[in-house]
């Protein structure tokens, strides 16, 4: 019943098209993150699901029910605003019970459900405190509880962690995921933070410039980006992307990384993908999936910067012609200026069409 279907959704604001076209089906009870840089259309999509904006074209269906013309108060949607929109002139209790009181539920039910929700969110001690002046983590729980108490089939969260400092975000991620498990509702979560999307979502919908780029589980998106945008956007640092040309030498495929003067042989699956290529390709691999090799094998690039972040060391490699980053577990005496000899694991190589940016796949 609480499945969400977006069909050919388009939103224009005057001459500006915020959402070019969007088709997405979100299953009942699924946690989907809409991920993308600011201005990609993710919030617009969310506002249309909530009914705050009207689509210029296309349909939104909850289950089989078309939501066109259904006002936002009647959609049965819970919404957590980026700034939480807590009613600061009320107490925590009044905030939590607002929806129940507005829809005129019997007062004993209001009391019972408010207390139950406060218990679940550990808000009982501050139920009668004024909402103004509470800390951000409590405000967030109030915002979630205020929506959850209405038992909406669908829960929408608009960047709820963007106002929280980095250390606290990790705590809140765990907390939010736990809440979703206990509520078992369909959740749509808008964020520009890939870490939030990766850690919490069942599936991620990556968006850019009003276009849905890829939908998949966090690992699918990480391992097999559908195009160059996703490859660059996901991962920190993003995927290394080098220009090259597929060449066939004695029946085995290799990529000629012209500028670097190397040819790298490919694993069978990648070779099959390379055969489909129409001209130049972009050769990609994750910074974590490269290993050091002895001189004369693999690629060599000078180390231009060593970034030590404790558990890992990020090497910035390259000169003007090509650049890459690699991530190693430990700092094995990397020196700036020295050449690093490295090669990606053959199975970790991903190929993209240089012209269109789309991923080339073996099958």
């Amino acid at each position, binding site marked *: 019943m609480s499945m969400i279907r977006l069909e050919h959704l388009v939103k224009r604001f005057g001459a500006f098209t915020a959402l070019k076209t969007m088709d997405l089906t979100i299953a009942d009870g699924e946690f989907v993150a809409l991920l993308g840089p600011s201005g990609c259309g993710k919030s617009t999509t969310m506002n249309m699901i909530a009914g705050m904006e009207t689509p210029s074209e296309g349909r939104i269906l909850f289950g089989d029910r078309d939501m066109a013309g259904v006002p*936002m108060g009647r959609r049965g949607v819970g919404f957590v*605003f980026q*700034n939480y*929109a*807590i009613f600061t*002139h009320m107490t925590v209790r009044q905030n939590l019970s607002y929806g129940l009181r507005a829809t005129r539920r019997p007062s004993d039910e209001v009391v019972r459900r408010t207390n139950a929700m406060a218990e679940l969110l550990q808000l009982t001690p501050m139920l009668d405190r004024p909402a103004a002046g509470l800390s951000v983590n409590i405000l967030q729980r109030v915002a979630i509880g205020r929506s959850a108490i209405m038992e909406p089939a669908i829960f929408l969260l608009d960047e709820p962690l963007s106002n929280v400092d980095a250390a606290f975000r990790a705590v809140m991620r765990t907390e939010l995921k736990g809440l979703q498990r206990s509520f078992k509702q369909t959740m749509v979560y808008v964020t520009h933070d890939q870490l939030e999307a990766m850690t919490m979502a069942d599936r991620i919908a990556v968006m850019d410039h009003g276009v849905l780029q890829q939908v998949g589980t966090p690992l699918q998106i990480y391992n097999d980006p559908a195009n160059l945008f996703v490859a660059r956007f996901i991962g920190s640092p993003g995927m290394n992307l080098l220009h090259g040309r597929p060449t066939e030498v004695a029946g085995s495929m290799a990529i000629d990384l012209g500028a670097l003067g190397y040819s790298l042989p490919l694993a069978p699956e990648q070779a099959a993908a390379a055969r489909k290529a129409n001209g130049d390709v972009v050769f990609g691999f994750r910074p974590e999936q490269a290993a050091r090799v002895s001189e004369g094998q693999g690629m060599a690039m000078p180390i231009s910067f060593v970034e030590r972040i404790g558990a890992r060391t990020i090497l910035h490699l390259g000169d003007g012609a090509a650049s890459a980053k690699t991530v190693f577990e430990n700092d094995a005496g990397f020196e700036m200026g020295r050449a690093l000899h490295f090669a990606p694991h053959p199975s970790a190589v991903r190929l993209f069409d240089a012209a269109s940016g789309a991923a080339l796949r073996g099958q």
Partner: protein
Amino acid sequence: MKDESARLGFRLTLPAQVLVLFISVFPLLMQAYISLTDWSPLSGQSWPQAWQFWNSFANYSDLLGDGRLWAALGRTAFVMAVCVPIEFMLGLGLATLFMDDFKGKRVFYSILIMPMMVVPAVAGYMFFMLFQSGGPVNDILAMFTGSPVTIAWLSDPNLALVAVMVADIWQWTPLMFLILLAGLVGVPEDQVRAATLLGANPLQRFTSIVLPRMKTIIGIALAIRVIECFKIFDTLFIMTGGGPGVATETISVYIYKIATQDLIWGYVAAIALAILIVLSVVCVWALKRMARVRA
């Protein structure tokens, strides 16, 4: 050291303090002094010699038994009780309308706030003309009734006050509108949306989200208008001169009349001082209440 800097501070602010002393404290003391005498400018003595006419608190006890004063006060309170709520409701309604976008909003906005810019004396003259028995108001009424209307608005003791209140509402609704619009703009949109998503209907949203957020600004708007309305004079004086008879004689008109016609300045000073004290007490009480609500 601290003493030294305090003394320097005192010396530096001395000119300003003297100025304040002259423009507010001195006239107040002078008024209090005169209010305890029977002094009149016709007595042949200048005001510092007013002690020769000392009558203790006789003016204040006269004031308690002055029927005309109490009638004027009652009339003023009536005007206030009718005009301020109407202005508030109209202003709030208009402000709510102006939160939405519609065609020609800017033009309507300019037209709407224009009455506030009209000099009250001019507004008084405008309404004096409008409410003549052969004037436009009667002409428009005639269009509805189909027969000529010749209501003597300004010379009928009951209708004159109505005409005066219409003029006041016309001139001061825009101020309410402006202040309340500023208040409405300050209500966070997300909170209203959140309430909508929780199933609140427009009336619930207004009473539970919008109004509490505007409490302070509504208090300020009402306070300004109540105080101003209490002092109503210029428009009214040009329209009716307080007449016919004493039908539109408000407290300001009454004070004006006894000050300029009867010239009993000792008594005038007593009335003015009494009103000042009562109004100040009411204002302080209202402000304290408002501060408590906000805290």
